[in-house]
């Protein structure tokens, strides 16, 4: 069973709205979102395309600023941070995983994993040994010298998971992490994320419309038309999607 967590909120979103000004028209993408995400949980943000899921996700990741309302990460309002502090937040507090893997093509797997540690000021040797450990943890032992082009999609995403974990972040933000993977590799990545979340107590927040995610999620936030449609905990969820688990 999961170890006992103190009910601490790592992410708090209050009354967030986001408008995109397209010149002639203003699109209200988010229409007042309130959310609290507890430390150590595996949370999925679900919603159809155009629901504002990605926009909300970018707000939580500090990649975009809300038009109104506030986003707190560890009780820090990210709108108040300057460029240096934001970079620090992205470097140490948050690990990103992308749909398209986004490894740096000219670097080897190991160099991709050690890059965030370099930014964090970890000395070279320590970064390399931690990088090797992480690559072994995601099941890529012996692949450290390979360039992304020499790895399969699933392997690239594993490198990305290792990279996201490099600076022991509190949050891992995964944007459609299985979107570009086949069913089986997708499942492997999901269980890898789940395992990392359990072992290291890191909060995983993933935006997805992959129903495979539901089986491992502690909480699912359904977004519809710029609002929170419903928030379901794991126990409510299993009744709902029991028939779909493989």
């Amino acid at each position, binding site marked *: 069973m999961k170890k006992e967590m103190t009910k601490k909120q790592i992410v708090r979103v209050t009354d967030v709205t986001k408008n995109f000004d397209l010149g002639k028209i203003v699109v209200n993408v988010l229409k007042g979102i309130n959310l609290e995400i507890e430390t150590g949980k595996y949370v999925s943000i679900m919603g159809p395309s155009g629901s504002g899921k990605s926009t909300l996700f970018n707000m939580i990741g500090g*990649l975009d600023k809300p038009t109104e309302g506030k986003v707190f990460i560890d009780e820090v309002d990210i709108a108040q941070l300057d460029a*240096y502090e934001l970079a*620090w937040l992205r*470097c*140490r507090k948050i690990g*990103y995983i992308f749909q398209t893997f986004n490894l740096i093509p*000219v670097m080897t797997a190991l160099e991709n994993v050690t890059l965030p540690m*370099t*930014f964090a000021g970890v000395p070279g040797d320590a970064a390399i040994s931690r990088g090797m450990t992480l690559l072994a943890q995601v099941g890529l032992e012996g692949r450290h010298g390979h360039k992304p082009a020499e790895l399969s999609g699933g392997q690239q995403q594993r490198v990305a998971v290792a990279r996201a974990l490099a600076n022991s972040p509190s949050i891992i933000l995964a944007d459609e992490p299985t*979107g570009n993977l086949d069913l089986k590799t997708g499942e492997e990545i999901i269980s890898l994320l789940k395992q990392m979340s359990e072992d290291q107590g890191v909060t995983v927040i993933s935006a997805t419309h992959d129903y495979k995610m539901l089986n491992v999620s502690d909480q699912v936030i359904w977004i519809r038309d710029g609002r929170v449609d419903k928030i379901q905990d794991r126990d409510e969820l299993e009744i709902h999607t029991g028939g779909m688990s493989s």
Partner: protein
Amino acid sequence: MRQLVVLPWKQSLIISYKSIRARFFRSLITTMTLILAVSFLAFSQITIDIADAMLTSGNPVFHRILLQSGFDIQPGNISLAASPKQRWIVILSLLVCVVGIINAQLMSVTERFREIGTMKCLGALDKFIVRIFVLEASMLGLAGSVTGAFVGGIAACSGAVFRFGTDILPIFPWHDILLSSALAIITGIGLSLLGVLYPAIMAARMQPVEAMRVEQ
């Protein structure tokens, strides 16, 4: 307390070097324009240096050869300036070279949008990105300028020997030739940096959210 995000110079150098190697042929083409422009600059400067040396040697034979080869010598001249036409051609070639570099670097930035966005998501500051691009340009600039100055220098010297005969070898103005080459190299590196300025700033200003975009 403000914690720091860092990128040591050594790492920046490694990253820049790898980016150049990954796009070797494109880098080569960019460097070629620089080589051409710098060698042309070095060639015309060094040719004038040599002619100057021939003029100041006071040897009437040299004087006659110079006049025969089309140099416009006024009585009392101690230095032969480049003609306005020549100067314009040099300036134009340098201008074309800068435009070429800007174009190549802009392409390189566009191609690396996602890479830059990803780096920013990993915590890179704007100045890291600028630094990587500037280092790349400096490396290309240095390589291109040194090659260009060398090619231009060799061409000017051998051209002079060919036109004026081996008699001029003893009065070769080595010091001035070196100085002109150095100047051409500095100009070349300067042009390379000038060309990367706008693309680098554009890259650095890019929002990390670009990394999330799915379309390539």
